[in-house]
């Protein structure tokens, strides 16, 4: 039974990410796009998938990756997220420089662009904070509040950005992935009591030692 549960959780996660990617791969729009643009689009979808994985890892919900191993994976997947966003933005820049520059300068006519750009800066900021956490001498409380604030910005920014785009992603699978991203983020924040007094970065509180 335990094995079945492990297999089910992993299968559900793989499906939640791979199904939207597979359905996007069947989109007609690729017929009229260059390879760089196509790559940039998939990098964006994969980035959204990684935003789903992050809270699951830190919450220890993924079998085989509890505690320390989950946190290490979270750290490296955060790095992968930065790479995916760089490919997404870089590829779109190459495909249509004026549109990308408008988006980055917050003068784009597309309502979803500022959400994506804000999420991008939040991803870069949290990655820098994580990389230089020790060197910066960040107190655990500062780190926790900073990371949580940026995580909320990343989740909301990415989801709104994705939902408003008329692109290659299939509507239902995109909505489902976005809903899962939001639910996973809410669940980990509730479980880890991140907004309670006395909470620590590992979610243990003085009143409720785990």
């Amino acid at each position, binding site marked *: 039974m335990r094995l079945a549960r492990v297999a089910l959780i992993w299968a559900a996660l793989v499906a939640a990410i791979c199904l939207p990617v597979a359905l996007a791969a069947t989109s007609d729009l690729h017929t*009229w796009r260059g390879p760089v643009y196509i790559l940039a689009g998939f990098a964006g979808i994969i980035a959204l998938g990684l935003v789903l994985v992050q809270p699951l890892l830190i919450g220890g919900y993924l079998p085989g990756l509890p505690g320390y191993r989950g946190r290490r994976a979270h750290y490296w997947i955060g790095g992968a997220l930065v790479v995916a966003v760089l490919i997404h933005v870089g590829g779109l820049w190459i495909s*249509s420089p*004026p549109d990308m520059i*408008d988006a980055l300068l917050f003068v784009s*006519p597309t309502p979803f662009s500022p959400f994506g750009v804000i999420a991008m800066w939040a991803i870069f900021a949290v990655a820098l904070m994580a990389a230089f956490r020790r060197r910066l001498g960040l107190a655990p409380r500062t780190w926790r509040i900073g990371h949580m604030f940026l995580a909320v910005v990343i989740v909301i920014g990415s989801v709104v950005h994705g939902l408003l*785009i008329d692109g290659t992603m299939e509507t239902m699978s995109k909505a489902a992935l976005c809903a899962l991203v939001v639910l996973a983020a809410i669940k980990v924040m509730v479980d880890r009591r991140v907004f309670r007094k006395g909470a620590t970065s590992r979610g243990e509180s003085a009143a409720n030692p785990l």
Partner: protein
Amino acid sequence: MTSLVLDRRNLLVAGGSVLATGVSGLLVPARAQGVAPTPSMSGGANNYRKGAKIVDRIGKGGFWMSGTVRRAGDGSPLAGQRIQIWAHTTEGQEHEPQSHGATLTDKDGKFRLEMPQIVPIFGQPHGHLAYDSGEFKTVFLRPLMKSAKDKSLEAHFVLQPA
């Protein structure tokens, strides 16, 4: 009771402001300045190529871009005005030369150009149009399609002297 009085007061204030807005709205067309010029849209000039040739049709066609060109103030139609049109279509990306073309307005200030089907690019199905002939101030438009399946799109220019 207090809340009811407040509600009625709010209702009166709101109703009064609606009335005021409505009346002033009716008065606007009677003013001397008349039809206001169309401002350029944000992102309208993206991937513009100067000097697109006047063509009977862009590529193989199948999609219609149409609209009107009028003079600011009196709103009279402007004939013989050159409108440039480009978009990301089934036959090319926005910046590619084959995605660009131009047409002239008829005596009623109307223009209509057949072009390949527009497909969504940068997250929105949209076209680009430009008036850039010098006699009037340059205007760049970027109209959106309601649905990516639409077979036509309209854009309207009201130009002011340069």
